């Protein structure tokens, strides 16, 4: 047996966006075992939501769980609170929530792709992808008022309406983005250097994805067709606005890139359909009720299934709020998928997981 070395990455490392620690046991540059630590930024948000804040304020608190998928958290919480209050929100509010979730998915997927390129040693592609991503941040600011951490979904509906000129601007800028997306697709798909780095790296099989309960693009890249947008028709009408399941089969970094890029086309179509068919109605359902009983909600955040559990006791303060972020489901698979890969591929593999530690540790 060759000599084994232990090599740590993180919690502070140039290739990591967030505090995350992997300890690799390597043998001749090959990773044979991985230990992971993902809990450097625990902030006690669940405890705060059940002690310091009233249930209507909690949507603003959970919006701070994550900067990138803030809308997923506020929407999932609002939905679970609405279940406890037994109210139905107006149709326009449902459509506007879907619109912002898809705009958010565009910027989140492009951020992940850019970091895969950077960690694969392709600095120019990182900058190009980030440059093309900027339009989605500007649109989110126009719709929600903030580039990140948008308090758009609130209990009962949404906080802002979509102005006609903003809707027009979204349509125009999406049209301009499509050729840019085609260009990115061509590079990520066909660039020889990038494919050498990404094909076969960090691969998991569909069976492993099932066994390890993987979610999001990580699972879909391995051929496991799981997407909550395909499942929870009762809360948001995804199929009505053109949702389509995207899967690949090879389960490697390359396949994850392809899933994210192909999902961007779906997001564009969904946004266009929402704007073209945006129903007229109120934005919020008012109620004076207090949350009672227990309920769960699942929502497809950019990284996968987000799960909220809430229990109310007919008071302003919730009895319990549980948040399960997508990365939490992928921790077990993240550690396993390194095995057999070159240590040098680890940064690109980590970026392709798109881990969000502020969500996971919350």
């Amino acid at each position: 047996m060759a000599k084994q070395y232990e090599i740590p990455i993180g919690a502070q490392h140039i290739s990591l966006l967030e505090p995350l620690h992997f300890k690799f046991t390597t043998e001749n540059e090959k990773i044979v075992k991985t230990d992971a630590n993902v809990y450097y930024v625990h902030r006690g948000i669940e405890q705060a939501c059940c002690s310091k804040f009233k249930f209507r304020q909690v949507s603003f608190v959970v919006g701070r769980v994550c900067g990138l998928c803030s809308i997923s958290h506020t929407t999932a919480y609002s939905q679970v609170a609405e279940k406890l209050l037994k109210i139905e929100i107006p149709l326009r509010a449902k459509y506007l929530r879907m619109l912002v979730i898809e705009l958010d998915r565009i910027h989140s997927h492009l951020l992940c792709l850019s970091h895969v390129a950077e960690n694969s040693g392709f600095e120019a592609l990182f900058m190009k992808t980030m440059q093309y991503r900027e339009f989605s941040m500007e649109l989110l600011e126009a719709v929600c008022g903030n580039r990140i951490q948008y308090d758009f979904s609130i209990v009962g509906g949404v906080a802002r309406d979509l102005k006609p000129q903003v809707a027009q601007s979204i349509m125009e800028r999406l049209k301009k983005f499509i050729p840019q997306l085609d260009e990115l697709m061509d590079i990520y798909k066909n660039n020889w250097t990038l494919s050498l780095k990404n094909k076969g790296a960090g691969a998991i099989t569909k069976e492993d994805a099932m066994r390890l309960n993987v979610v999001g693009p990580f699972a879909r890249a391995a051929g496991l067709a799981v997407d909550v947008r395909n499942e929870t028709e009762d809360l948001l009408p995804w199929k009505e606005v053109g949702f389509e399941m995207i899967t690949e089969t090879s389960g490697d970094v390359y396949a994850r890139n392809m899933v994210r890029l192909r999902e961007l086309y779906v997001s564009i179509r969904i946004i266009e359909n929402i704007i073209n068919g945006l129903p007229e109605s109120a934005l919020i359902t008012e109620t004076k009720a207090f949350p009672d009983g227990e309920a769960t909600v699942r929502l497809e955040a950019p990284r996968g299934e987000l799960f909220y559990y809430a229990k109310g006791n007919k008071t302003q303060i919730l009895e319990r709020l549980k948040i399960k972020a997508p990365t939490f489901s992928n921790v077990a698979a993240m550690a396993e998928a390194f095995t057999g890969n070159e240590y040098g591929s680890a940064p690109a593999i980590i970026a392709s997981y798109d881990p969000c530690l502020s969500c996971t540790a919350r």
Partner: protein
Amino acid sequence: MKKIETTIENLKKDIAAFYKPELQHFMVMNAVDLGEKIEVQWFFSNYAHPCETICFYTLVSPETEIPSIRDIVVSAWVAEAELVDLMNIKVENTQKGFVLEPDFESGPLRKKK
């Protein structure tokens, strides 16, 4: 959400009979402090019946050691380790210190007496 009550003695048997990796998706474990007892929950969804959330639950006293299901659901160790730290409950073969530092106050999600 469909809730199925189980007991500490029957937990592993019930979950082993229910869980098939190609059919069910394990989401997370949760616990709710009810005062004298703690309600421990295991959440699953079903690939074939997507809108259904299944919750196995059992009521235990805080001192009870809960059996680990990681030999049935491989990825459950993450959720078990999280609950041990945040709820200060005992889970078979699970040490403290995954989420919080080992010397941090135990069970921040438990109700203060």
